[in-house]
């Protein structure tokens, strides 16, 4: 497998250093990397799963609105960024591993390197109830 673009590699290195969950996906939404805090969201360790197809991870944390209605994939910031190659942001709820509904804010940004190619996107999950 050819190595990833440098902007993806450096994104992973940044994610490795952050204390909030970070997900990095390729242009098709396949999950290339998630950091240790993100393992708490997915309930899986990157060392165990490696990269995951979008179908295996996209709905695993049950994104929903305040009334508990599921949010369709196209309503999620990361999916929007993949579709538009633009930053996106939204506050919504996910289910934690203990099935507790947690209010989070998600910011996603496109990863476009010096070659101007769209290499993927990075999503940062902010737990609004957590004080770092």
């Amino acid at each position: 497998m050819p190595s990833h673009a440098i902007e993806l590699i450096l994104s992973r290195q940044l994610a490795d250093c952050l204390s909030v969950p970070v997900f990095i996906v390729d242009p098709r939404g396949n999950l290339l990397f998630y950091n240790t805090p993100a393992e708490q969201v997915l309930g899986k360790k990157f060392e165990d799963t490696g990269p995951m197809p979008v179908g295996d991870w996209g709905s695993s944390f049950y994104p929903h609105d305040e009334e508990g209605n599921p949010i369709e994939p196209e309503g999620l910031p990361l999916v929007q960024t993949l579709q538009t190659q633009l930053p996106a942001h939204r506050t919504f709820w996910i289910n934690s591993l203990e099935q507790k509904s947690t209010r989070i804010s998600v910011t996603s940004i496109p990863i476009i390197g010096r070659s101007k190619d769209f290499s993927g996107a990075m999503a940062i999950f902010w737990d609004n109830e957590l004080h770092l």
Partner: protein
Amino acid sequence: MRVRLHGTRGAYPTSSVENQTYGGNTPCIEIIEGSQRMILDAGTGILEIDFNRDYPENRIDIFLTHLHMDHIQGLAFCKPLFTPGKEVHIWGPGGSSEPLINRLNRFLSPPLFPIPLRDIPSKLSVHELSEEPFTFGDFEITTKFISHPGPTLGYRVKSKSRTLAYIPDHEPIIGKEHLYSEDEWVSGFDLALNADLLIHDSQYSKAEYPGKIGWGHSSLEMAAEFCSRTQAKRLILFHHDPAHPDTFRTKMYEDFVRGTHYSFPMELAVQGTEIEV
């Protein structure tokens, strides 16, 4: 394929008597196969090239990894640029919001240099490289952006018989002791994969590196691990720190070698040597 090391020193040139073992010129190497020649980087090492003897034709091509001063400062005194009738092509990293020629012009113009690029008497062409493979004569060249501050390319040069990887400034993993276990997450991996010769940054000792995190350079240990992971067949340890006497650098290398068990040959780069690949 032969490689001539005209400059092996990082950061700044040194004329200290304590730096004569590995040489004081900043990076420049030449790749030679048959009548084909290729110049990589234009540190002060480029001033060692005998252009009258080795480049009798009018056209000269210089390939830059990046624009840090130690890799371009030889351009200012590179004779072909100031020879009317010569055609000089400079190739370097694109990927910046500012064109490469403008970035070069910051250095090659007043007040840092008396003559602006537009007044240089040779016919100058500047070409921006990205990550598209291309050919240069008989050489097949692959460039990739690598982990180093600012737009920086590593080169893989393949001739009919041999492959060389030139990655003189590189911090493949930042602030960690080892590379990621997955090859696809290793900066520069494709450039060096199975290369016959890898010329790689190795500025620091393992003990020095924690104080230099993010500066864009490797320790000896990191360079060797990178070589091992990419299965390059031979390693030239490059970009010596001019702040250290060469006796210190030699001891640093000997201490490092004593603690390793790599099977590939490796050595410290020595200015003026020619290596048969």
